[in-house]
């Protein structure tokens, strides 16, 4: 349990049992001040329960939560220096925008003279001054979310918690709010913790991401580390797309490991450290090169037949069958402007990639 000095939130062996389920299982990590931290995982992995325990809306079965140096595991929600933006936004329907934002100050007895300016400032921050006297039912989803943000930020929390803040917005607005949230976080300079099941959201916004699965934290890393250096098969598979090849180590030689794979035969993979037995070779689709002729310089290559081509506009996904029942997928950027793609189902193609772009996963 390392409680470092520069942690704004420190979680130690935190566990939450619900009848019949372990929602959060002995989770420990630190969150640094001014960090944009994301809890990412499939639904039911315990990320929301973890967030709610930080907020004080759920009491842990065991473990520690230290917020800004104070043990708060059992402190009720209304006495914690954190505020939350709820998934449904939970904007009070019978209050105007202004009253909603003022509520959190009023209930703790903030002097009237102070409430007015602070509410105004918070509304300006989320660009809602014009709508201060509206009722929530006269606002759009995006505007309601801004009310929820202003209402939480006006309290000047040490940490802002966001529970799936973008899931209720449509795609275009989601992209815009993503950018706005990161800008807002820089502007107010406080720690944001966001819960999301959307990996794009986590990768594009967070400074660090904790990937959760079945109540446990599988890996905590920066977005690039998580994508390029996943620690386990689960993380590699959960973040982005990946080709996974099961295999067995047949030999090691300074910096490279030889693996006998099921689909590609024996390949050499760059890898530091001791490794043996069953492993998993991972390679991202965009690291693969697809070509008509056999590439001469690529160390890892295989011939196959194009099964399907999925067109996404900016890129195409090409599924190549290397052997019976064994497919690799490659992501090819559509760099030039033309209607016919380079590859069509049935084509015989070569797939190749560099040894450094391959990852060896032992877990």
């Amino acid at each position: 349990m390392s409680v470092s000095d520069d942690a704004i939130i420190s979680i130690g062996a935190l566990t939450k049992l619900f009848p019949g389920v372990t929602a959060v299982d002995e989770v420990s990590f630190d969150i640094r001040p001014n960090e944009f931290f994301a809890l990412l995982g499939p639904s039911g992995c315990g990320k929301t329960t973890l967030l709610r325990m930080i907020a004080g809306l759920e009491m842990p079965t065991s473990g520690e939560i230290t917020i800004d140096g104070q043990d708060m595991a059992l402190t009720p929600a209304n006495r914690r220096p954190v505020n939350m933006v709820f998934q449904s936004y939970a904007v009070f329907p019978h209050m105007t925008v202004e009253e909603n934002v003022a509520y959190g100050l009023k209930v703790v007895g903030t002097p009237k003279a102070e409430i007015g300016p602070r509410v105004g400032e918070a509304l300006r921050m989320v660009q809602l001054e014009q709508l201060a006297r509206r009722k929530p039912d006269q606002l759009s989803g995006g505007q309601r979310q801004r009310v929820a943000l202003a209402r939480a930020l006006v309290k000047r929390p040490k940490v802002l918690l966001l529970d799936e803040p973008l899931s209720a917005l449509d795609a275009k607005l989601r992209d815009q709010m993503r950018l706005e949230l990161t800008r807002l976080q820089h502007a107010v300079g406080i720690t944001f913790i966001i819960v999301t099941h959307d990996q794009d959201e986590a990768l594009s916004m967070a400074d660090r991401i904790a990937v959760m699965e079945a109540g446990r934290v599988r890996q905590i890393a920066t977005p690039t580390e998580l994508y390029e250096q996943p620690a386990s098969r689960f993380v590699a598979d959960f973040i982005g797309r990946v080709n996974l090849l099961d295999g067995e180590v047949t030999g090691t030689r300074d910096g490279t490991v030889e693996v006998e794979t099921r689909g590609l035969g024996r390949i050499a993979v760059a890898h530091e450290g001791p490794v043996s037995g069953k492993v998993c070779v991972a390679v991202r689709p965009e690291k693969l090169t697809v070509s008509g002729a056999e590439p001469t310089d690529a160390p890892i290559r295989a011939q196959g037949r194009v099964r399907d081509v999925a067109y996404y506009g900016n890129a195409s996904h090409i599924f190549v069958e290397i052997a019976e029942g064994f497919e690799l997928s490659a992501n090819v950027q559509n760099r030039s402007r033309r209607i016919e793609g380079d590859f069509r189902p049935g084509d015989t193609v070569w797939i190749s990639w560099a040894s450094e772009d391959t990852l060896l996963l032992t877990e």
Partner: protein
Amino acid sequence: MSTETARPALTAPAPAGRRARGRDVAGPLDFHRRLWLRIVIAATFLFLYAPIVTLMAFSFNDSRRNIVWQGFTTDYYVRAWNNASLFEAFMNSMTIAVLSTIVSTIIGTLVALALWRFRFPGKAIYEGFMALPIVVPEICMGVAMMAFFARVDWPSGGGWPFNLSAVTIAHISFSFPFVAIVVRARLAGFNRELEEASKDLGASEWQTFRNVIVPFLKPGLVAGALLAFTLSLDDFVITFFTTGPEAVTFPVKVYSMVRFSVTPEVNAASTVLIVITVIATIFAVRLQAPDRQGAQ
């Protein structure tokens, strides 16, 4: 834009419009234009409102025997007002209704909150038993109440308003389940995150209840209270069994008067009661109407 403005002139040929107007067929949602439906509506209005309108009209009838229209008078309103025992019965009814409404709204709301909020052993059983007064025949309730009050030797005298205590208690016991059901239905639509948001923003349990839950419940509270009020005001059976000789309510009094003859006096008093109920309903509906403040 330009193509859109040009289009109507091209695609709206006049003959088609004229034909539709000429045949004048009722559209799928033009229910009011079907004959059978009109008849049903007319019959409903007739049987529902004609008796009430007649009752009100004949309260101005200048005749002792309330059968033939003799001429207009407000005499019977004065007489009803001056009829000490009728007036007293009326005031008794109002007192009981107000007291029982207040208490049953509070108890009913608390029951609804408890059932919504907590899990406790025997909850399902309690939920079933709570609704019992709604389904038990009123006559059985009345007899049971009478037997109960007699058994515990509940004081029936004691001067106003203590002589009304037994009736009031009986009224509360049969009207609070109605309030509980209405409030519970409202609570079912409550977003728990609102409550959590309030606490997260620093509000205590009580502040959350007052500032978030009660405003949300308001329409349910008003509807429940109105229900309790009207249930109490017009209850005859249970009241009949639980009133002592010196604490008579309006419906019981009217019943005893009608046994001799239906005089316009009864009509006049009934009209006043109808007006009061209607005013209470209008007031309640206005309270429930969405707040227009801030509308643009």
